[in-house]
């Protein structure tokens, strides 16, 4: 099931959100060794987890977090604009119809096959959300090791500059254009899943 949460209500009190911040710690701190703040030794939360953030979450029947992504508006400080401006050959895309995908996270508690299904659900949910909210472009910073997989989704994804090697790895900036055609591009690669059937969408009170 797909859930949309915005940062105003997103304090780590709700069960799904707590699990999301815990899984983020397990993936980004424990597994990928990112140098990011950890709250209370359990939750990975940084300065961008604020009222401007939107979370797209895939959860199981019981409401447990399976995967999620954090969307940041590009009109305010965000990761590409604030932390990695050198990754773009020209000024990074920005504006009300551009959001940045950050903290794309798949819970490590799943096996390979289930994780792949959650990944497909999450990618589909991101596209569905963009179409619904009038977002035309997603930007993002990704380690180059993920690039092949991101391209294999079949959507329209282009680099914004040459990748750069940092101590933490080689990363690059990407832009993904979302149009009415995107769902069929994803479907052609076996990625698209009907996560957004109104019956399975859990609307969140503001």
């Amino acid at each position: 099931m797909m859930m949309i949460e915005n940062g105003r209500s997103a304090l780590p009190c709700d069960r799904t959100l707590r699990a999301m911040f815990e899984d983020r710690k397990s993936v980004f701190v424990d597994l990928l060794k990112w140098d990011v703040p950890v709250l209370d030794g359990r939750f990975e939360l940084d300065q961008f987890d604020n009222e401007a953030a939107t979370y797209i979450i895939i959860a199981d029947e019981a409401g447990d977090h399976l995967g999620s992504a954090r969307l940041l508006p590009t009109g305010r400080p965000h990761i590409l604009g604030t932390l990695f401006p050198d990754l773009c050959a020209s000024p990074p895309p920005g504006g009300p119809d551009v959001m940045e995908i950050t903290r794309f996270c798949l819970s490590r508690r799943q096996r390979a096959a289930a994780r792949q299904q959650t990944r497909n659900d999450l990618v589909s949910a991101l596209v569905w959300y963009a179409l619904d909210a009038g977002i035309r472009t997603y930007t993002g910073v990704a380690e180059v090791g993920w690039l092949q997989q991101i391209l294999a989704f079949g959507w329209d994804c282009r680099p914004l500059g040459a990748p750069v090697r940092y101590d933490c790895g080689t990363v690059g900036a990407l832009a993904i254009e979302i149009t009415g055609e995107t769902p069929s591009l994803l479907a052609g690669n076996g990625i698209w899943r009907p996560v957004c059937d109104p019956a399975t969408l859990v609307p969140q009170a503001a």
Partner: protein
Amino acid sequence: MKAADLLGRSQRLSDPAWPALVNIFEPSGECGLELQALGRLGRRRKRLRSLRGGARQERTLWLRCLGTLLRSVAEGRARGMFNRVEEFIRDVRELASEDELAEAIGAVITDLGFRYFALAHHVDVRRSSSAIRIHNYPAGWAEWFDEQDLGAIDPVHRASNLTSVGFAWSKLPDMLALTPKDRRVLDLARREGIGDGFTVPAHVPGEAHGSCSFACPAGERICAEHLPLLQLVGAYAFEAARRMQRMRLAPGPVQLTDRQRECVMWAARGKSDWEIAKVLGVSEATVGEHLRHAYERYGVGKRTLVAVHALFDGTIGFLDVLRR
């Protein structure tokens, strides 16, 4: 400060590096000339630094100008090359045939200072009808490579299965324990005229591992400043080849049912049918049936082989098998 202003200012100075500067801005279009000029500039910069006394102010100004100039030339070149790669990325999206793709890759890597490329799935010959392989290596080399059945055991392919980020071939000995045969393969490649190289791994979950390699003619060194861009060229080239291959092939990859996959995963962990039956809560005969169907789908007859195939194409993950 703009380059033109800098030039105007520097002309007023009695500058020893002036001829080199003129070289840089002459629209010769030849990268080699520019590089030579930059090299000369660098050497003269050192000499300028060693000046003493009198012309100190002039010298300081000069050093600042040169620094800015060198940076702007380097940035301009980098931006130009990124534009070239962007053009390649736009173009390959429209291409329909592997020949056109090979031509486009050959052209872009020439601009990046490379000569050869090979884009391949790392698979054995038996399944090679569905595998991607596009290259412009010397004909003799490709034939020998096939005769030796190197697709899956080539040291470059093996190393690329160990990482998700591009690596220079000079790093191979740090990544793998090279066998005498590996060294022979690398020596022979050099003898065929293939020199230093850089390989971009191409891993798509659920599919065979692949890679895109780029090499210089033997005796030439790889151009390190362009390696980040090669990373992009490799990824987009591989995706274009993948798209073409999908159009060429009607049936998709081997697909197991969830139950078959679970049985294969436990078999890969070394469990017997009886043990798997206990774990899954089904009869031993049912487990045997699931595994037999999995054998059939892969066209193999042994549990070791079915496990290896399922690991190789990503149907089960290494972590699933190794997890305790």
